[in-house]
């Protein structure tokens, strides 16, 4: 289903759950896996110094250092690497989101796996807010699906069976739906289609009348059915539901209720002003809070082919 997977890791324990998912997926689908580590962001002025992403220290990213970092990664993932031969290890210097996008494009990967920000991450560049930035930029610009794993409780790919697809009926959500549909058929799982009527977006108090809300709910139910359910053909193991509230809260609640092991949604490229809403978009909030992996799909370009699964 995925020929090439890129796993972007810092090599730190925070990435362990993501690593498990990445390796499991690669094994399950016979994918070519690349481990990728951006070891430092460009440092001072025109110098050769970089700021090490883990320690926050200035380092000289010369060949020796790069090799050292690659070696460290090999040690960290020694067991997994032994079980899965042919994994490539790449290291680079630069702004993490940029370098992840650059290599994803160069290698034409079908899926990017990222480690999500978990609580208590205080070291190095996490403090500088690069991770939130990283997620946002990668999820927005990647041509392929981006899977983010923040919680150790995350189940592994092979075990996915309960997939929540959360939509806002945007064009990007249509791509996310195609992805969810393919995956749920491939793993023979259950699909839970969900929409949340965003109450916070109503400016006018008139719109907030109970009747108004109920009309919205009814309309959204109709859309879930017309725009998605009708595309499922013979596939019957799905449910659809519409709640109201603040989308990310409701999505996380819904996923918990359905014991989802994967959430699929779009990133909403356009409605986030990175400065005014740092880490504020629905997807990003879901990633931080969900107890399962979250896949974001923004474009139709690189969706998995069901036939290969």
């Amino acid at each position, binding site marked *: 289903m995925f020929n090439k997977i890129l796993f972007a890791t810092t090599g730190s324990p925070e990435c362990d759950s993501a690593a498990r998912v990445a390796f499991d997926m690669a094994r399950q689908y016979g994918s070519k896996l690349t481990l990728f580590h951006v070891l430092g962001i460009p440092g*001072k002025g*025109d110098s050769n110094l970089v700021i090490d992403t883990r320690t926050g220290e200035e380092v000289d990213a010369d060949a020796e250092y790069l090799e050292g970092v690659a070696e460290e990664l090999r040690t960290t993932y020694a067991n997994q690497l032994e079980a899965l031969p042919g994994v490539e290890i790449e290291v680079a210097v630069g702004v993490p989101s*940029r370098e992840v996008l650059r290599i994803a494009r160069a290698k034409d990967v079908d899926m990017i796996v990222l480690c999500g920000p978990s609580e208590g991450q205080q070291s190095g560049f996490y403090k500088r807010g690069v991770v939130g930035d990283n997620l946002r930029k990668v999820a927005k610009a990647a041509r392929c699906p981006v899977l983010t794993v923040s919680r150790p409780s995350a189940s592994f790919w092979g075990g996915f069976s309960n997939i929540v697809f959360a939509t806002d009926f945007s*064009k990007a959500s249509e791509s996310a739906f195609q992805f969810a549909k393919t995956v749920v058929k491939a793993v023979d799982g259950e699909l839970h289609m969900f929409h949340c009527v965003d109450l916070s977006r109503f400016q006018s108090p008139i719109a907030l009348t109970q009747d108004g809300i109920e009309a919205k709910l009814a309309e959204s139910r109709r859309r879930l059915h017309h725009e998605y359910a009708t595309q499922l053909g013979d596939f019957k193991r799905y449910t659809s539901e519409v709640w109201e509230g603040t989308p990310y809260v409701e999505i996380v609640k819904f996923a918990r209720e359905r014991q989802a092991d994967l959430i699929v949604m779009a990133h909403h490229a356009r409605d986030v*002003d990175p400065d005014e809403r740092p880490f504020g978009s629905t997807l990003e909030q879901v990633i931080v809070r969900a107890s399962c992996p979250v896949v974001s799909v923004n474009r139709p370009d690189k969706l998995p082919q069901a036939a290969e699964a």
Partner: protein
Amino acid sequence: MPEGIYCNKRPITTEEELKALLSDTRGTKYYEEMLSLEVDREKLWATIQKTCKSRTKTWLDVCARCGLCADSCFLYLVNDCKPEQVPSYKIQSTLGEIVRRKGDVDNAFMRHAMEVAWSQCTCCNRCAMYCPHGIDMGVMMGYTRGLLYSQGFVPWELKIGAGMHRVYRAQMDVTTEDWVETCEWMAEEQQDDWPGLEIPVDKEDADIMYTCNAREPKHYPEDLAEAAILFHIAGENWTVPSEGWEQTSLSMFAGDWEACKLQVENVYAAIDRLKPKRVIGTECGHAHRATVIEGPFWAGRPDGQPPAPYIHYVQWVAEALREGKLKIDPAKRIKQPVTYQDSCNYIRNWGLAETAREILSYLVEPGYLIEMTPNKEHNYCCGGGGGFNGIGKFRPQRNKALLTKRDQILATGAKLVIAPCHNCWDAIRDLEEEYHIHIDWSFLKPLLLKMVIVPEHLKPKDEEEGDEE
């Protein structure tokens, strides 16, 4: 030892040599070897006789050592007014001495001169405005750097920087393929949000040819995307050259004149090849100095001009705002205390102080612009100019030099510093990291993008397909 393996008089000419020098972490072996690098006295004197023009000789002679230039130099002020930091002292004790001794100087002298040339002067040319004879230490220090470079006495990072220009015609290892690929990538990445946006490569006879700083494709390609979006909004007919796109010159900071010439000729060749009506450079001060102000002389152009009119980014922005090619949403103007960092290289050395202010009049709500003191062409260097930012060996001196700008900014009370110069931007970022004064800093492009009114016909069509609530 006359010449070392790492530290020698030979310029870097191949990728292998470059990598070898880079592998010498922080130039440890390089500086060790420098301790015993021999000075080729005859060659030094011969070079001086050939290249030391009458202006420099006159300046050295007419300097009255009156010290009127002292207070003009921020490095003098920030270093407790040490006499060694008086501009005229800095030049008389280095270049002046070499000339007086007809090149008969030793290794220790040269190492000292290197320290003065790269850690006590940023070639900001401010002193020239205050000397009654118009003596310009920045220019003379630039010349001194050339002499030092030719003898191998140049900071490690700058030897590498000049080498990069020689090998890649760019200050970083960005090849033609990397560059063209980055242009395609950025255009592709923006197409959802900006239907029809292109980054046309090698289009002939365009109205604008755009050149940039290799850091952009290397680490911050969104800067290129932002430039493309703004040209797109403004409806410009523009292009970038596949070769000759890199406008900066670390070789200028290094004093490697030959590399300067090679670099600028590469850009001029692109102009000759694509025949644009004019050329616009990115938000970089030294790039402008290298390619527009000094470049024509390195390239031996008789009229002292680049092959086509060549303007700095602030000139294009001011024009686009003035002519309504870019329109600012008044509601989005900056409404917090903001100040402007005058880049020596295009404000003092190219006279764009008022042009920059014109831009600010569109971007900043009246009353929120607080000028630094002094400002415009009297403003001080950011503290990291002339290569100072990048030299590890002189980092402590550089950090101290940042204090001037820090205090200037603090005195304005501004929370945002607009700095349309890569080097100034870096210096301000570093001073924030070093001294934590809680400021923000920005180039013009991201600010413009936040405030510009996007014409209806350029907006993506599918926008409202989604949630209509």
